[in-house]
């Protein structure tokens, strides 16, 4: 079980290896990586800045992880969310769920991402090619995705 809110990048293979090291009870690993896009709503994005309420983000992600573990039989999980300024192509978020079987790992990873988007205190501001910066508005479909759990 691990939660990290950090400015630096993450290494997906290394994170998986640290979950599985020395274990033979894990039969399924699901990973989700969120990546900074270079286009949004038809605009070219040159940079994305993520603001966070760091102490609450760590607490909230830990609560979400506990919630996932109470719903699915997970052997391990990792949530890493970056903040600061990123360029298109950069990693933003990583969720890894490990379980004996794939169904629990898929569902738990999906649940964590849906909940994270509506409950973890992060806010994205996009910078367009012309230098114009705008805060991204929350999407109703993200609330709907979280509500299905």
């Amino acid at each position, binding site marked *: 079980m691990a939660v990290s809110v950090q400015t630096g990048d993450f290494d997906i293979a290394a994170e998986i290896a640290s979950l599985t090291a020395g274990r033979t009870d894990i039969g399924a690993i699901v990973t989700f990586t969120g990546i900074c896009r270079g286009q949004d709503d038809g605009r070219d994005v040159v940079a994305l800045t993520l603001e966070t*309420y760091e*102490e609450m983000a760590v*607490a909230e992600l830990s609560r979400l992880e506990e919630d996932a573990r109470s719903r699915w039989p997970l052997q391990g999980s990792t949530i890493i969310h970056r903040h600061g300024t990123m360029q298109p192509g950069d990693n933003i978020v990583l969720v890894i769920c490990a379980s004996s079987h794939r169904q629990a790992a898929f569902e738990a990873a999906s649940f964590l991402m849906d909940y*994270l*988007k*509506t409950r*973890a*205190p992060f*806010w994205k501001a996009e910078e367009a090619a012309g230098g114009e910066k705008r*805060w991204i508005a929350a999407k109703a479909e993200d609330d709907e995705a979280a509500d299905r759990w």
Partner: protein
Amino acid sequence: MSVTIKYFAWLRERVGKAEEDMILPAGVNTLTELIAHLRRQGEEYDHAFATDGVIRAALDKRHVPLDAAIGGAREIAFFPPMTGG
């Protein structure tokens, strides 16, 4: 009682500060009452909190509805809907 109030994202930009310490005045028991009090402190606060139904809040780093009682919380945070992930 002194509390720390934190603001994030466009709410922080509109208020013009990331956080402040405040002694809660008598009669301010809930977050809704605190917002009403803040809106009387100046145009920047009034503008920041003008978007009804959008502002979210946390007490001591936990999400709460705006009608929540502040109680003994030491840290209050106001922010727009989250857009991480």
